């Protein structure tokens, strides 16, 4: 604490990709200087005397000059702009005469008052930079359009000549045109192509790269082609394997993750409340689409404007949910318009960022300082998105009712269950008689609709406090011993039982009142029976004495709703926030009268349902009321003696049929079109000039005219002369496979982005991608079939110095697995991973059990059981305010805004996850169990045999995880670990039991003390092997591809 932090930029604990300052800076400096000025920069060689504007000059101007002397007219100093030839040569630059140009004077002067950039803006230019500027001005100060704003042209792959043959005489492998471009540069940097990776490495690399799963996860036909390739490692055999991988559903799931980052997809809507949002059917649509033959272009157009396509299908409308993943703020007292505008701006910046690699957010407040998007053009683009119906409403409308793809196995199971129950039903007498109301009223304005099944749907106004009153009539002779209230989920309320935005209700009080036209006569008698008269009315309250319900959340039992009088804002009442189903399941409560009521004549009565808890708007959404004449209904209900079969049937039918309402984009009718204005300083209330949709000038298509709506915009993205869309797409897919994009700043192709390492290759691939009908599979295949991608990753001494970051691809890519794959691979290797596709999000083990958001109450993470515990990561419920920590720790994008690439970090918190996370421990146990099965179950007495078997077991685990033959050294190390652990666990069986997760060993028959000797030995072995498996699942090679 006392000593000043010397070289700590961040201590190693939290170092980025583990960087710590090197001890000897001199060494580094030397290396670098030689690197930078040896004529190679990012592997590029420049001729001695010519100057490349885009690569050498623009970066200098951008860094030092453009923020004050650039396109932003509002902030331009000295009326000078240096981003155009006209501006620069107005007075500051004399083309061909550096010595006579003011610019050179001002940057080279010693006078601090005059020197540019001003001291408070940044350091002076480097001598080298000044020299470059001089040279450039002397040679005419030629400007060039930023490289990425010029449409890509088809490039001819450079020829790889024999002279490039490596020193050892081996010929470079050229498998497709990618290799021509790559080798050309590798050779000119004095490097040579790495040897091809071994067939096993390639099998794993392709499987993880293309499907996010290890090779063994795939079905039999894939295994056969793996076998063929290993047996005879030829390119055609590899190609067959790759083709198969690209057709697996795992491929679609894996690449969907990339889209989910772009779409900022999550299962909640963000900000303080972070309420659940059912938008997962869109995620399923995405996976299905990726699995289909749909092109990148069609997929994109559907997402951006599916609703505007002629005769849009349900699926095309659903596709637009892409842009409904924007955050919604439901905090009390917020201005919905403010947050609607924020969402619209987010759609605009997401669209331009994801498809064109342009960053436009800064133009919200002022014209872009670096790229050609003026503030006015920004708001013209804004207008394209400004005419949709959604408006940050609490209910997230508009929504599309979707029948999601349900897992066929689940549906079949439900059908079978319903069938069985229906057979049993014949023996079950109907106890409940459903009543059909004569009159439905509310105290504060809620309206009602009577549905075919006699349920009552509430809709219309949503006051803070509300009381429903339903009038029924029963014929003479009817006995009412109890009434049943069903709370039914309804699509009107997003499939929830309540009307609040989260779908909650609290029934503060239920009252049953007999409507008596002859009150006077019966009054006394009823009083004695315990009835109370409602003041100033002809109604007599029939009090309840007990209640039961099928479910209630803590402290919200239906019993608390039967008190004859309640305080306004009181905390009692029936509520049903279920840890698994939330508010989305049907529930029922049974209320038993103090004394059964016998109708001597036809009698009318009213059921009052009061909603007046401390929180507003918690009203029932859809209810149905029934009566029964069975005495002691509550006790019978609790003993499941009251119509149990019907109850189960109802629940199963609801589960089978429930549609989901998904927020989608929908265009407002023409007459309700909004007006768009320039927003001064980005403030939605400060309206400037009125604007209408228009494409930005620098990117206007010269070949086609496009309509000025979202559909036009989405087609404009794919115009033949759009310079960016194809490049950005190709670059993204390339980066996912290679680790780095050709343009490293995938999200910024503008002048502030990095220049491409291989511009010709990028253009070549972009042109080919567009011409090949935007076929992503074809593109991916081309990459993985290249000799470049198939190289081994070994880093040579020379490459460390010349190409430390592998920008030149003189070796194969080595990529840290993404968060999703880190988990899925471990589960798969352990044999736990479920291959179930689609469906509602799941809740795998999570150390954070409960999240309490401001104002909207909490959410309990109720762990899924069975198969759902081990689904692929993409199906994990994603709460924005509390993402699953495993994914967050492994650098998953935040999903609050569009994310084009993830940062890769290397931290001790990651180590905690893969060492200690429940999922990883479970995976280690499962893998250990498989390892121990190797070599049979018999006890072996012979020590040699037992050692041999141990070697086999450990080799099996290593091979399963790494897909490589186990090495002697690895086996030795792990054998020692096993033996040492075994020594410890054999004498501490309690610890062994705990390691195996038998935490309550005493209750479960797994108590080591009661075990026989062989069982105890077995337990110690399993615990020890789990330790070994835990190490295997943490190997660096396992976490990398």
């Amino acid at each position: 604490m006392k000593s000043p932090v010397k070289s700590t930029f961040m201590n190693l604990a939290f170092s980025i990709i583990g960087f710590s300052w090197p001890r000897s800076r001199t060494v580094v400096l030397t290396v670098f200087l030689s690197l930078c000025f040896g004529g190679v920069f990012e592997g590029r060689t420049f001729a001695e005397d010519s100057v490349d504007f885009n690569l050498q000059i623009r970066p200098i101007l951008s860094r030092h000059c453009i923020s004050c002397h650039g396109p932003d007219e509002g902030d331009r100093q000295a009326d000078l702009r240096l981003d155009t030839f006209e501006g620069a040569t107005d007075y500051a630059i004399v083309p061909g005469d550096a010595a006579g140009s003011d610019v050179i004077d001002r940057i080279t002067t010693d006078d601090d008052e005059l020197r540019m950039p001003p001291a408070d803006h940044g350091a002076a230019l480097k001598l080298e930079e000044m020299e470059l500027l001089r040279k450039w001005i002397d040679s005419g100060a030629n400007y060039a359009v930023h490289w990425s704003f010029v449409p890509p042209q088809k490039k001819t792959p450079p020829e790889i000549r024999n002279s490039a043959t490596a020193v050892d005489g081996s010929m470079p492998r050229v498998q497709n045109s990618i290799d021509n471009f790559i080798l050309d540069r590798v050779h000119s940097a004095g490097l040579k192509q790495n040897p091809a990776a071994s067939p096993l490495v390639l099998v794993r690399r392709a499987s993880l790269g293309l499907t996010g799963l290890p090779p063994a996860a795939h079905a039999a036909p894939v295994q056969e082609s793996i076998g063929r390739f290993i047996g005879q490692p030829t390119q055609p055999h590899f190609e067959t394997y790759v083709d198969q991988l690209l057709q697996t559903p795992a491929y679609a799931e894996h690449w969907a993750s990339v889209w989910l980052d772009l779409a900022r997809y999550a299962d909640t809507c963000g900000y303080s409340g972070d309420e659940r949002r059912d938008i997962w059917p869109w995620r399923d649509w995405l996976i299905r689409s990726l699995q289909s033959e749909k092109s990148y272009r069609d997929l994109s157009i559907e997402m951006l404007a599916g609703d505007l396509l002629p005769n849009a299908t349900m699926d095309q409308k659903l596709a637009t949910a892409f842009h409904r993943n924007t955050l919604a703020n439901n905090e009390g007292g917020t201005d919905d318009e403010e947050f609607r505008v924020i969402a619209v701006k987010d759609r605009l910046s997401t669209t331009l960022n994801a498809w064109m690699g342009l960053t436009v957010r800064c133009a919200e407040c002022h014209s872009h300082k670096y790229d050609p998007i003026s503030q006015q053009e920004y708001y013209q683009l804004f207008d394209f998105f400004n005419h949709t119906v959604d408006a940050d409403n609490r209910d997230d409308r508009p929504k599309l009712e979707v029948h999601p793809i349900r897992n066929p196995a689940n549906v079949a199971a439900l059908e079978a269950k319903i069938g069985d129950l229906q057979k049993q039903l014949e023996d079950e007498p109907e106890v409940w008689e459903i009543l059909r109301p004569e009159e439905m009223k509310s105290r504060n304005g809620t309206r009602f609709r009577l549905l075919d099944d006699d349920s009552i749907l509430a809709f219309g106004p949503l006051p803070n406090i509300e009381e429903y009153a339903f009038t029924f009539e029963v014929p003479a002779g009817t006995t009412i011993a109890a009434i049943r209230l069903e709370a039914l989920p309804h699509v009107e309320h997003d499939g929830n039982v309540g009307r609040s935005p989260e779908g909650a209700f609290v029934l503060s009080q239920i009252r049953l009142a007999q409507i008596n036209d002859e009150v006077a006569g019966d009054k006394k008698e009823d009083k004695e029976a315990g009835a109370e008269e409602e003041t100033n009315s002809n109604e007599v309250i029939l009090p309840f004495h007990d209640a039961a319900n099928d479910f209630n959340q803590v402290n919200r039992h239906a019993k608390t709703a039967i008190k004859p009088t309640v305080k306004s804002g009181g905390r009692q009442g029936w509520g049903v926030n279920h840890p698994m189903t939330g508010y989305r399941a049907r529930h029922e409560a049974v209320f038993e009268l103090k004394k059964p009521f016998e109708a001597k004549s036809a009698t009318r009565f009213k059921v009052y349902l009061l909603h007046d808890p401390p929180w507003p708007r918690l009203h029932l959404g859809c209810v149905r009321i029934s009566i029964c004449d069975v005495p002691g209904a509550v006790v019978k209900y609790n003993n499941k003696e009251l119509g149990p079969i019907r109850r189960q049937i109802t629940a199963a039918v609801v589960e089978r049929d429930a549609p989901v309402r998904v927020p989608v984009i929908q265009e407002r009718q023409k007459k309700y079109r909004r007006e768009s204005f320039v927003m001064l300083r980005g403030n939605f209330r400060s309206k400037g000039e009125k604007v209408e949709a228009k494409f930005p000038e620098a990117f206007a298509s010269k070949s086609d005219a496009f309509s000025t709506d979202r559909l036009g915009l989405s087609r404009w993205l794919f115009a033949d002369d759009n310079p960016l869309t194809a490049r950005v797409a190709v670059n993204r897919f390339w980066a996912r496979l290679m680790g780095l994009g050709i343009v490293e700043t995938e999200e910024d192709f503008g002048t502030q982005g990095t220049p491409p390492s291989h511009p010709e290759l990028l253009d070549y691939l972009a042109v080919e991608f567009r011409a090949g009908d935007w076929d992503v599979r074809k593109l991916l295949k081309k990459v993985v079939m290249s000799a470049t991608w198939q190289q081994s990753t070994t880093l040579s001494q020379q490459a460390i110095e010349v190409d430390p970051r592998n920008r030149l691809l003189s070796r194969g890519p080595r990529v840290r697995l993404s968060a999703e794959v880190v988990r899925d691979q471990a589960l798969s290797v352990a044999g736990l991973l479920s291959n179930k596709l689609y469906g509602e999000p799941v809740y795998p083990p999570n150390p954070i059990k409960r999240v309490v958001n401001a104002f909207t109450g909490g959410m309990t993470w109720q762990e899924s059981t069975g198969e759902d515990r081990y689904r692929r990561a993409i199906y994990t419920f994603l709460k924005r305010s509390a993402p699953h920590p495993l994914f967050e720790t492994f650098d998953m994008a935040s999903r609050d805004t569009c994310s084009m690439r993830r940062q890769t970090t290397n931290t001790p918190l990651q180590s905690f996850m893969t060492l200690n996370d429940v999922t990883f421990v479970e995976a280690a146990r499962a893998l250990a169990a498989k390892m121990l099965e190797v070599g049979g179950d018999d006890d072996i007495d012979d020590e040699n045999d037992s050692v041999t078997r141990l070697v086999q077991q450990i080799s099996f685990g290593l091979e399963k995880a790494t897909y490589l033959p186990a090495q002697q050294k690895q086996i030795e190390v792990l054998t020692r670990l096993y033996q040492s652990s075994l020594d410890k666990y054999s004498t501490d069986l309690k610890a062994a039991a705990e390691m195996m997760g038998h935490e309550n060993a005493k209750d479960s028959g797994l108590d080591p003390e009661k075990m026989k000797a062989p069982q105890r030995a077995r337990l110690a072995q399993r615990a020890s092997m789990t330790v070994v498996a835990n190490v295997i699942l943490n190997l660096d090679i396992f976490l990398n591809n």
Partner: protein
Amino acid sequence: MKTNSDYLSNEARVAAARLQTRRHFFGNCSIGLGGLALSQLMAGISTAADDTDSHTGQHGYQKRAKPAKQVIYLHMAGSPPQHELFDYKPELEKRNLQECPEELIAGKKFAFIKGRPKLLGPVFPFERYGKSGMQLGKKIPHIAAHADELCLVKSMYTDQFNHAPAQLALHTGTPQVGGASFGSWATYGLGSENENLPGYMVMVSGGNMPSAGKNAWGNGYLPGVFQGVQCRSEGDPILYVSNPKGMSRDIRRESLDALNQLNRREYELFRDPETLTRIEQYELAFRMQTAVPEVMDISKEPQNVLEAYGAEPGKASFANNCLLARRLVEQGVRFVQLFDWGWDIHGTGKKDDMHSQFVKKCKEGDQPIGALLADLKQRGMLDETLVIFGGEFGRTPMVENRNGKMDFIGRDHHPDCFSMWMAGGGFKSGYVHGATDELGYKVAEDGVSVKDFQATVLHALGLDPHRLSFLTQGLNQRLIGPANTPQVVHDLLT
């Protein structure tokens, strides 16, 4: 830092690669620098030799002679009412329950107040404290006892009046999600001083997350390592810092030895410098396994300290968090962020009423904060530790009266003026800055915007708020935002 001499000999070579990796980080992950890589690189290197802060763009910044080293930020989520605590207004008291002057509310929008509200005088009395005679609410006597240590700013203002956006604006510089938080910036700029603990730790009390959720301590566009690490009061203080049940520390040690050997072999085969880093991270994790539980265990504190704070080992409370905050800064944690929920005193019911909830929150918060200040002072840590207290905005001088019954008392959100105080860390002591008008409705003198406040705190830490930046998506992101208007308020500093 190196734990094994085996690969020290490789350092020079590997260093180059790793510097590249680092540059990859700051160059490429700091999206956009790449185009300028050459000059940036040179700038980075040349200054790296003589200026350790080069990576933050701190070229030649005139640092404060004795900058604050650490921060304890006490955020009272919901926003405490300044008219009861810090900003005594006799005129407001005089006009208690009179109609609010029309001109104050004309054209104004409030979160909940509708129509023409009534003024609400201070519900609880004030008193003068200390030699400075600072006027503070009597509901916070323990804090007030340190009046002569406080730098009270009465003239804060913001432009957000909903909780989540206001908290985001205050902590991340933008009312929308995606910004990098205060603590992320501080650790990005200064690093951490304890290599076995995260540099930025967060604790939440009061039963709820703050409205802005974890975005309030998010790293935004900064690298993930700068995210606040939330310490939990239940289970592991840091997720999975404990070994699985049944795995002893011995076995863990042995399994890490095995893992390291295998990974080193991996490195020898492929020479990926990241592999070495991973080995180091596992070692670090191993050390954290003892460091974290140790620092989080308050049961070893002497009884008198526990009593002073009102802390109880094993319980989740704001008091415990205050004590933990001291323990963390003592260990060199750079930025400790506390959020305490429950200060949103609207007066719509008992749960947010001035007489019940506010009194309760004062009671819960006052003693531990007073104890924290005393403790830091007594240990000689207050000079280098900056303590910040505040909410995300102010509250109205008018009564909210949402249900029209006046059965409970409270105030609505108010962005135009609020109070915060700082103590230690080079801020003036016993000093009051700025003033509001006679009704405490808006700033009358020396307004300090949220961005000025951010600039001032960064400056107090020895960082240049205008230069501390990160280039991403074409924008040079800064905590204080893109405009150069925010200024360091030098008057607040010694």
